[in-house]
């Protein structure tokens, strides 16, 4: 609970900073506050306290996920210093993201369906705003609107599901719900014969709502556009912190509460996982924009993590925890590099009018639409190893980790998920997942190959015609990196290696 107080306090502090004009030192203060929040969570370890009539419970599960979320947020803040400091209203951004973090912490610690709903809303609403924070950019606005509409839609499903479950059981409390679900007779006796149907419908609607939140196929359509349109740091937030929180909530609900009806939702989750893995990976192959590619790959990672919900065994919370930590570290690293590369890529003239005909675009059109904020095409990574070896190395590590190559963290995460699924007898699904990660290797390697391939000859020539083509060849010098980014890069590399080589550091905690 202390962690929640600290985060809220920090958010308020950020807002006060605008009034009392101490914006300048906000960045280190937020970093410090996040560390403090982590320390508070460690302090609470093994206490297992219930708050507000059992609305929230900070058991070890909640604390561990809170720590992962705050640690990710720490890395995220480090990576997005530019995003904050370049904005005219940076205090608002800080406050919004800190309040979103509060929502995330509530989502991992709820023991009451109402708190789940509140947590999701507290998390989502600031993100809707942040997604649209680049006000004069059309695609940022589009992203915010799409995210808002889809988010509201999903919340509708979720809320309706919660209502039906309440109707069937007469309670929002997870513990009580669990006992009801454990004995279907009690529902029938309380509600009459229709009670069980209500419960079924409720569970399925909640399942749909959660699937929207974690972006599992076929509820994923909003992701690519939202991810691509939003400012890159916000995308990083969405794909790491939001995903971790959503999965922790998803798992908590289904593992502790709905597991009694596993036969009802097992096949559905099986299908969702298989579809997410296959479609996510296959579609990502065709993306030429790295941000879109990461969006689709995020869908496939959601698919892998659904394996843990399916198995719902002793190993699954550890598996999701480890996987989300590994995935978050690698993603933050990747998005940080992407943001820098994007910044140094002169944005294309908006694809309107005759300019479009004159200037061939270095970004392919397959899969993605041309956008005015069009940096981040895969070609802008060409020759990055020459321009900035550190960035290149960091991106390589992130990509290899996401692809699941040992000894990086991503590998062990996958290994742990797959072996727990294998243990529960889902051989075919594991084979599909293995196939999916094999496809995944293709697009991750594509980025690495681009990074290490020399610029095209036409782009190196100095003549006029090739200058027009050289949009993908910006200069990114090491000197341009701020201290926070340098620290971040070393941290993500170190964490990817450390978690990968000593996975026991995390998995034995839960």
């Amino acid at each position: 609970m202390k962690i929640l107080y600290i985060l809220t306090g920090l958010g308020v502090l950020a807002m006060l900073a605008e009034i009392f004009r101490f914006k300048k030192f906000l960045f280190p203060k937020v970093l410090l506050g996040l560390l403090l929040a982590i320390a508070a969570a460690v302090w609470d370890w093994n206490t297992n306290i219930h708050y507000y009539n059992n609305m929230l419970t900070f058991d070890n599960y909640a604390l561990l996920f809170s720590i992962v979320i705050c640690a990710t947020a720490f890395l995220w803040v480090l990576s997005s210093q530019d995003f904050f400091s370049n904005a005219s209203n940076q205090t608002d951004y800080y406050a919004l993201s800190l309040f979103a973090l509060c929502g995330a912490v509530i989502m991992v610690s709820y023991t009451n369906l109402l708190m789940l709903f509140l947590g999701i809303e507290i998390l989502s609403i600031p993100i809707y705003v942040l997604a649209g924070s680049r006000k004069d950019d059309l695609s940022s606005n589009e992203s915010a609107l799409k995210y808002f509409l889809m988010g509201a839609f999903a919340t509708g499903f979720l809320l309706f599901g919660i209502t039906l479950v309440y109707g069937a059981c007469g309670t929002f409390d997870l513990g009580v719900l669990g006992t009801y679900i454990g004995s279907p007779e009690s529902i029938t006796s309380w509600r009459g014969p229709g009670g069980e149907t209500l419960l079924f419908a409720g569970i399925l609607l909640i399942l749909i709502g959660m699937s929207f939140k974690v972006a599992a196929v076929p509820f994923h359509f909003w992701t690519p556009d939202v991810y691509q349109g939003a400012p890159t740091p916000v995308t990083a937030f969405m794909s790491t912190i939001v995903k971790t929180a959503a999965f922790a909530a998803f798992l908590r609900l289904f593992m502790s509460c709905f597991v009694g009806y596993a036969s009802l939702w097992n096949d559905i989750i099986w299908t969702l996982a298989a579809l997410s893995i296959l479609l996510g990976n296959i579609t990502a192959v065709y993306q030429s924009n790295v941000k879109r590619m990461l969006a689709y790959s995020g869908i496939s990672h959601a698919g892998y993590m659904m394996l843990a919900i399916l198995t719902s065994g002793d190993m699954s919370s550890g598996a999701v925890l480890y996987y989300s930590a590994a995935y978050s570290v690698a993603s933050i690293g990747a998005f940080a590099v992407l943001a820098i590369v994007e910044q140094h890529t002169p944005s294309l003239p908006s694809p309107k009018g005759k300019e479009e005909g004159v200037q061939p675009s270095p970004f392919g059109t397959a899969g993605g639409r041309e956008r005015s904020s069009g940096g981040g095409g895969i070609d802008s990574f060409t020759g990055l190893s020459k321009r900035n070896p550190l960035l290149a190395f960091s991106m390589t590590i992130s990509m290899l980790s996401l692809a699941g190559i040992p000894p990086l963290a991503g590998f062990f995460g996958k290994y742990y998920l797959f072996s727990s699924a294998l243990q529960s007898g889902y051989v075919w699904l594991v084979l599909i997942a293995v196939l999916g990660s094999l496809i995944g290797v293709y697009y991750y390697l594509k980025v690495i190959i681009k990074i290490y391939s020399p610029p095209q000859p036409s782009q190196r020539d100095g003549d006029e015609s090739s200058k027009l083509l050289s949009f993908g060849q910006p200069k990114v010098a090491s000197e341009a990196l701020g201290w926070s980014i340098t620290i971040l890069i070393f941290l993500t590399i170190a964490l990817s290696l450390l978690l990968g080589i000593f996975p026991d550091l995390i998995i034995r905690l839960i």
Partner: protein
Amino acid sequence: MITLLLILFPILAGLLVLVSGNALAKKIAFSASIIELAISAFALSQFRINDTAQFMCNAPWIPSLGIHFKVAMDGISILLVLLTTVLVPLIILSRPSPTLPEGKGALSPSGRVGEGSFYFMVLFMQSALIGVFTSMDGFLFYIFWELALIPIWFICLLWGGEDRARITFKFFAYTLAGSLLMLVALVYVYLQTPLSLGEGPGVRSFDIQSLYEAGASLSSAEQTWIFWALFIAFAIKMPVFPFHTWQPDTYTNAPTQGTMLLSGIMLKMGTYGLIRWLLPMAPLGVQEWGNTAMILSIVGILYASVIAIMQKDFKRLIAYSSIAHVGLISAGIFSLTVQGLQGGMMQMLAHGINVVGLFFVVDILFNRTNTSEIPKLGGIRNITPWFATLFMVVLLGSVALPLTNGFVGEFLLLNGIYQYDAGMAAFAGLTVILGAVYMFRGYQKIMLGETNSLTSAFTDLTFNEKAVLIPIVILIIAMGVYPKPVLDIAEPAVMRILNIIHP
């Protein structure tokens, strides 16, 4: 402890190379590899010839999953470790010192990564390879197996030829697909190991002995499954027909040192995997399907030999000849006879040494004439006595002339296959004849005949080049004349594996 030292030393030295700058890189890397060779020689001197795994280093790594960092060496392991430690200095030495670019840091102005990174990758690879050959834990074995792939992929990607992006991708995808299959099979067997008793939830074990026992206790249908998953993984690495399609392109396109690493050492990961993991873990599967695997291997021998005869490019020719040789090793191993396995061990070492020599010859040809196309060359023998002689000996070793190392291995292998099935031995034996055809024709067209405009300026070997080829030639002859020590070291370990299959 010495095993751990063998694994860690190269990677640490590699880091030193990385920070030392391009000018010193080669010297440091070479000294490190010589020290590594000395360490392995010391290990050999301490090695007692019996069937136990020695120099064991065993520490819990991921205790909650029963994964240990367990490395040790028995007769099979130590021979392959020695092969690695002997070849890596030669491979490092064989790389010409580049005319240093004026750029500083890890990157040269051409956009390629500098020499320091190259030697780092080679030493990194050496660590991983030694790890593969000494792991006595299934999970650890997999980690090293994958680790070995990363440096060689970067070597091919960063220093490869024209079409490297496509070719290295194919290579990576093939081998990764194989290793994922292997991982699934290993985990499947792991899940059959008994839960250890103790406090808290029981823990299964990835220990090699538990995996052997769990694998052997599976039903025949399950073992078939395990057999194919592992066989495909190893077959891709070796490569055995029909999983070889990545190999000729990759070998041709990779920089010479990369090709040497791939063919000289990395290929042995596959054959080693067959002996160490496949045979004992799925004995019923081997008995049921070993025949099919042998047929595939022998088809591969004939197919690759015939294609090798038709090759115009000498580097490609050697790539195909490598498929033929490794096919014979694989067939010999699946004969499940002492001679077959012993021959396999012998031939692994012999092939490693010979193929590195051959690829170095190609490199010399290419550096001097800018081509490795056989028809364009000719008459080099007339002007370069050293090169002609040393090339000839390496060639003889490769075609298995008696008193060279190739002969011992091939003889034992064919003997083993003959005991299994005489008809198969007849087909497999064709490799000797076909091998002689393509190798000697290659030699004839490159070295004999009239000196043409391209080859007239061909200079004889430099000191550096002699320093690489002469040790190879000495090894070829020494192992051919007196192979007994090698066979003695391998025998107890081989017998132990065979005893698991035929109790």
